[in-house]
């Protein structure tokens, strides 16, 4: 049961938008018949296995694959030598840091193994067990090197260097030396010193967070089938099959058009399946063997070989007046990028203060490599980490001046026209409405009063995404409708696309079937990520639907033998625009579709958009906890999450997104962490030792859907998938402080750490 509230001032009413129809992908999933990445079996298919580095940092002196290749049943063995070299240059945006010299080395190591689990070579054989045995027969001669895991250690002069020639970008000092620092970023607005001088209270604190994994249930998996003419097909579980196609083509050195990628059902991604690990290797093995190849990760592979989000070391400082005005803020964010540059530190810099109206602020970020798997996106990448530090210090400020922490946020929240630290001014409302909705929740007036209990408040901001999406609509002979998009469905997009199509077309939701189409049958669509799909792909669906309506009106005009301008579309029917057109009985879509051949052929339309003016995501949470003083265990007693959702197209999915983000945040806050030993090896590469929250760990999470529609979107949708993971870590830390007078400055706040901090009287 979900204690959900929808707060809306909308007077507009819809027939399907805002309803909760049964999800179209539900039956195949609950009956176990949905096809995930590892479920496809092709005739003649063989099985791949990747050999991974047992060392955190080592030179690869020699790889001898002869024994593996000679094993009966082995059809192909590949190493990085089978892939073309890439240029060492950053292509495109700094944040993504797409440097294919790095990307190809992450897929198959070349000169060095840079982390435990780094892929070294791969084999394909007629059975999984033969492939496993063959991988063990590959002889790799390593020269083990000193390693560095911790971000602060990696930044020190004299730290073991992952790339001996990597010169930091963005440093002020002239002629910087090679370093593990990939780049430094700085964003400033106003006058920091003047701002702090005007504060009555200034508080600063250092924080650290552990690397955490997205924890998707389904390990990475794909099947590749390359033909002798160079064309190939890939079936893959990912957040973007167009992205997989482009990355694989670049890594293999083939044309994008030579590859066709079909999306499998996806068992979670949360950002971690926007990058490729397996597809180029599977394609290479298939090319060499002439057979289809399935490649999939084990859970251990996922932990060791795919990207978690960054761990961090941070410092934040906030100045506030006695009456609660935040007058200055400063922060330094140092993020682990993993073995190759490209952490989401810029997002932390840009998001941490964005919910606030602070005239004087600075955010400095460092992107730092160390001997860990290359970091990957994870739900609002970077933003939750920065928010943990800044929201913790803001809570300390509220307590120092004796102000309710939610009131402090209300007093300082940004509104339209307030500049962000990146420069642009806020253009959308919804922040204040969300804070007021949280304050109005009945439980807010009743904070916990028991011993060792306390409440914490925090807020979170995420940009949300727009960008390129495509959709195709086909009208069938019986008037049912197919909607095909290129967005893998990881958050209910098939239901929301069908709802928006049904609403626009004026037909029953159950007459619309939404599918995720492959790269050969629908136009380019950017990844399912950045909370962009309902917004951007939804706009493409509405555009395609409108084109179908226009065509249907033309067909009706032809049937009635009248001018096309004399036909209008209302509630799913073509009708005469006025009495002067003639006395015609309205035509349903089914009746028009039945005459499709006579009126010009199939009724179909496609649309492509590059959607902009997406509104940002904003979330405000409060949480009540109880801390066991004997063990340090933290129990979540109550959790309430309010979020500006624009308009909830399918409220159940929106509630699910909010609850999912909160649960992942609770895990990040209390238990999840990558634990490395002295050799730089991961000690907890499995769900038994890497502790994700389970149902018994958490109470029902109350959601408040605050509907402040985005006027740019036909139905007011805003991205809802990410802002919800930004507040939980700080909210829980703030609640622990309220309960115990102990300030937790390291994530996770696991029982031993809480106990140690309480014993030490940490403030």
């Amino acid at each position: 049961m979900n204690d959900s509230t929808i707060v809306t001032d909308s007077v507009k009413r819809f027939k399907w938008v805002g309803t909760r129809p049964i999800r179209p992908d539900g039956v195949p999933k609950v009956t176990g018949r949905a096809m995930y990445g590892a479920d496809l079996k092709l005739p003649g298919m063989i099985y791949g296995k990747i050999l991974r580095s047992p060392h955190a940092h080592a030179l690869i002196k020699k790889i001898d694959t002869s024994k593996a290749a000679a094993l009966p049943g082995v059809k192909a063995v590949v190493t990085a030598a089978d892939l073309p070299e890439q240029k060492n240059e950053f292509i495109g945006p700094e944040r993504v840091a797409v440097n294919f010299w790095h990307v190809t080395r992450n897929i198959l190591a070349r000169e060095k193994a840079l982390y435990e689990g780094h892929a070294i070579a791969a084999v394909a054989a007629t059975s999984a067990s033969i492939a496993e045995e063959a991988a063990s027969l590959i002889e790799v001669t390593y020269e083990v090197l000193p390693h560095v895991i911790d971000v602060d250690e990696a930044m020190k002069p004299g730290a073991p260097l992952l790339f001996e020639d990597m010169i930091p970008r963005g440093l002020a000092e002239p002629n910087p030396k090679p370093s593990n620092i990939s780049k430094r970023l700085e964003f400033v607005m106003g006058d920091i010193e003047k701002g702090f001088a005007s504060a009555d209270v200034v508080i600063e604190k250092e924080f650290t967070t552990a690397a955490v994994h997205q924890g998707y249930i389904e390990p990475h998996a794909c099947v590749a089938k390359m033909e002798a003419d160079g064309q190939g097909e890939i079936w893959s579980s990912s957040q973007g099959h167009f992205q997989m196609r482009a990355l694989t083509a670049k890594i293999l050195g083939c044309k994008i058009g030579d590859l066709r990628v079909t999306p499998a059902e996806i068992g979670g991604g949360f950002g971690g399946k926007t990058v490729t690990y397996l597809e180029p290797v599977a394609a290479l093995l298939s090319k060499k063997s002439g057979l289809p190849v399935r490649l999939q990760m084990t859970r251990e592979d996922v932990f060791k070989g795919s990207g978690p989000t960054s761990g961090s070391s941070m410092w934040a400082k906030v100045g506030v007046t006695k009456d609660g005005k935040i007058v200055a803020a400063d922060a330094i964010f140092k993020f682990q990028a993993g073995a190759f540059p490209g952490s989401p530190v810029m997002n932390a810099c840009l998001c941490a203060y964005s919910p606030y109206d602070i005239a004087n602020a600075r955010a400095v970020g460092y992107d730092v490599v160390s001997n860990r798997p290359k970091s990957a996106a994870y739900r609002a990448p970077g933003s939750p980490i920065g928010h943990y530090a800044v929201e913790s210090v803001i809570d300390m400020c509220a307590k120092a001046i004796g102000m309710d922490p939610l009131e402090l946020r209300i007093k300082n929240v940004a509104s339209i026209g307030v500049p962000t630290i990146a420069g642009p001014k806020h253009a959308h409302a919804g922040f204040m409405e969300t804070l007021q909705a949280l304050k109005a929740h009945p439980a807010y007036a009743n904070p916990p009063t028991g011993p060792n209990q306390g409440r914490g408040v925090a807020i979170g901001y995420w940009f949300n995404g727009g960008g390129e999406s495509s959709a195709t609509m086909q009208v069938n002979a019986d008037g049912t409708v197919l909607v095909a998009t290129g967005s893998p469905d990881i958050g209910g997009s098939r239901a929301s696309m069908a709802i928006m199509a049904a609403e626009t077309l004026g037909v029953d939701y159950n007459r619309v079937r939404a599918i995720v189409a492959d790269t050969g049958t629908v136009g380019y669509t950017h990844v399912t990520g950045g909370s962009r799909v309902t917004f951007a792909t939804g706009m493409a669906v509405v555009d395609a639907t409108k084109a179908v309506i226009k065509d249907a009106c033309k067909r009706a005009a032809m049937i009635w033998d009248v001018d096309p301008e004399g036909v209008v579309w209302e509630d799913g029917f073509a009708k005469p625009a006025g009495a002067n057109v003639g006395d015609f009985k309205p035509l349903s879509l089914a009746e028009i579709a039945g005459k499709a051949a006579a009126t010009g052929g199939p009724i179909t339309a496609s649309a492509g958009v590059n959607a902009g003016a997406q509104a940002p995501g904003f979330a405000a949470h409060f949480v009540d906890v109880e801390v066991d003083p004997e063990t340090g265990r933290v129990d979540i007693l109550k959790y309430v999450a309010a979020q500006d959702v624009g308009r909830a197209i399918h409220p159940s999915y929106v509630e699910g997104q909010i609850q999912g983000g909160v649960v992942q945040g609770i895990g990040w806050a209390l238990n999840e962490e990558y634990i490395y030993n002295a050799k730089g090896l991961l000690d907890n590469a499995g769900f038994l030792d890497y502790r994700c929250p389970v149902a018994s760990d958490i109470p029902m999470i109350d959601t408040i859907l605050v509907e402040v529609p985005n006027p740019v979107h036909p139905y007011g949708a805003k991205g809802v998938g990410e802002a919800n993971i930004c507040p939980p870590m700080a909210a829980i830390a703030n609640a622990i402080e309220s309960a115990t007078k102990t300030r937790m400055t390291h994530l996770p706040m696991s029982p031993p750490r809480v106990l140690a901090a309480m014993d030490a009287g940490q403030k």
Partner: protein
Amino acid sequence: MTATVTFTSGFARKYTNGVREFEVEAANLRGVIREMEKLFPGLGHTLEEETNVAINGELHETGYFQAVPPGAEVFFIPRIEGG
């Protein structure tokens, strides 16, 4: 129609000799990019490949087709990707 084009300080240091604000005559982003390319050859490509843009605060992927209203604030920022 005049628009104000602004860059972050880091971007300005790297590409426009530290100058952060420019006044340009343009009706859409294509015109803005072309005007900046005239001032700093090569900058147009960089803007297209490495930035997002906010027009009066509304975020977009940097393209050609977006309209730039008279008096608009056009702010180029580093490109952002989500999870």
